[in-house]
């Protein structure tokens, strides 16, 4: 009796796996039109529904926020939006008001401009201010608000004011006050941006944040390289009375050696005299910077 049962189990198991393979080959279920849903958006309601699992639910909402951000960012669907990002972060931080990473990373996700993010600097600041209300001693939230003003809003006065506020916190690092002063004096310059990102790189606790700081520093390097290459392309146009139409032109004229590549190794583009970063580069898109602030 044991052998027939075993054979039947193996046969049925093979049948299930086979049908699953057929299912996969056929492309799974028909594409639905269901949007991403968040059934409970009210943090107050969720706090009650969580019973004693509020911290665990906060983790789940945080994981969902990360997946939503990453999934939307990588999506090829032009209709993909970051609609659920703030509600998910709001729920995560309401269920766990001490969820430091949700405030700090969440604000970065929210502030990132399209297509890499929703570009909602207002919500990024609101999230960090919520963190400050929950943990009034966390200087990093104040620094992060200053950072959003600095990097994404190019509002250097506000940025300097927030860095100065962060410097007043009891555990704030010693470099915070000079950073506030530098920002006020030469905000927006690449040099001061480098100082800011290097401080973040040196103090980042997480691999993702460290990688992000490294990427931003490489973007600043790329912006310097692009300035030099654009100057070469302009010089070529002036001397030859026509725009360079490829790196071969600049190589032949002795302006460059080989094909210039960005700090990640991706070649720069040159067409019609215009030098630009390859859209497939990991550094794309480069941050905007106000004219004359280099």
């Amino acid at each position, binding site marked *: 009796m044991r052998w027939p049962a075993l054979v039947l189990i193996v046969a049925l198991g093979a049948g299930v796996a086979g049908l699953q393979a057929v299912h996969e080959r056929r492309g799974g279920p028909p594409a639905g039109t269901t949007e991403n849903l968040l059934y409970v958006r009210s943090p107050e309601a969720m706090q*009650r529904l969580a*019973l*004693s*699992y*509020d*911290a*665990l639910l*906060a*983790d789940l909402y*945080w*994981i969902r926020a*990360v*997946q939503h951000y990453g999934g939307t960012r990588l999506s090829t669907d032009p209709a993909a939006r970051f609609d659920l990002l703030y509600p998910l972060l709001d729920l995560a931080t309401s269920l*766990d008001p*001490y*969820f*430091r*990473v949700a405030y700090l*990373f969440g604000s970065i996700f929210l502030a990132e401009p399209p297509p890499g993010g929703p570009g909602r600097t207002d919500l990024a600041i609101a999230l960090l201010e919520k963190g400050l209300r929950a943990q009034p001693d966390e200087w990093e939230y104040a620094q992060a608000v200053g950072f959003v003003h600095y990097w994404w809003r190019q509002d250097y006065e506000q940025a300097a004011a927030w860095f100065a506020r962060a410097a007043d916190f009891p555990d704030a690092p010693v470099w915070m006050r000079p950073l506030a002063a530098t920002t006020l004096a030469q905000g927006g310059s690449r040099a001061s941006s480098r100082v800011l990102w290097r401080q973040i790189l040196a103090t980042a*606790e*997480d*691999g*993702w*944040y460290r990688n992000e700081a490294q990427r931003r520093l490489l973007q600043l390097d790329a912006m310097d390289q692009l300035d030099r290459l654009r100057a070469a392309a302009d010089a070529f146009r002036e001397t030859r009375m026509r725009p360079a139409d490829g790196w071969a032109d600049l190589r032949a004229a002795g302006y460059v050696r080989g094909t210039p590549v960005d700090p990640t190794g991706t070649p720069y583009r040159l067409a019609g005299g215009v030098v630009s970063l390859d859209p497939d580069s990991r550094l794309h898109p480069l941050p905007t910077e106000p004219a004359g602030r280099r």
Partner: protein
Amino acid sequence: MHPQVIRHVALNVFKESVRDRVLYSLVAFASLLIGVSYLIGQLTAGQDIKIIKDLGLAAISTFGLLIAIFIGIGLVWKEVERRSIYSLLAKPVSRPEFIIGKFVGLALTLLVNVATMTVAFYAVLAYMNTQFSDNVRASWPAPAVDPGMLRAVALIFVELLVVTAIALFFSTFSSPFLSAALTGGLWVIGHFNTDLRNFEAVVESPVAASLARGLYYILPNFAAFDIKAQVVYAQPVPSSYLLITAGYGAVYVALLLTGAVTIFARRDFA
């Protein structure tokens, strides 16, 4: 009451739960934690240790809760259903000894479960601790292997004892299904206790407000046993709070066992 008799009944409950493969839950717990520890780094950005701590403590609580309810509701009912209660009560076992022995037996099962799950939980955290650099570890609000989390585990255990006592209380006079529903219902309501206290702020009727206030004092306050978030962030939890809450749980258990013994003593098995 004879402690020897209670011990005998308790050991039988423990052996029966082992025979019923209750301890298999430990394998499920260990698999869950190990699986999640592996996956968590792929799914999220940062906070791996915090998430494992949250999940571990929640899983200890949930596995214990399921055992307390589903074993607790059958403690008396099974004996009646199998008619073994007749031979049991014919022996020199009094009804209070029987009820208390059943409770102690399930408490022992829960203690073994919670203790083993806690050891597995700390082992996973100790392993995860080795996966991070000193720089990252320094930024955590509490070390990965923080003995302070034992305070939350202790209160989870006291909470489970209260749930066991509730399940046992209902099982003395009700069917298993109804006992499970009532115990689960009380556990849920017990987390809304604070709302009952503040009921007067949302109703105008003084009678309704007084009723809610009365329920606030009578119903078990399960929210008080939940200090998981505090220990994960290494926030201070005063010893006095732990003592008062444990004392509250002990008195509540005594109250429920007294009720269970009283009801069971009046039941007619003839």
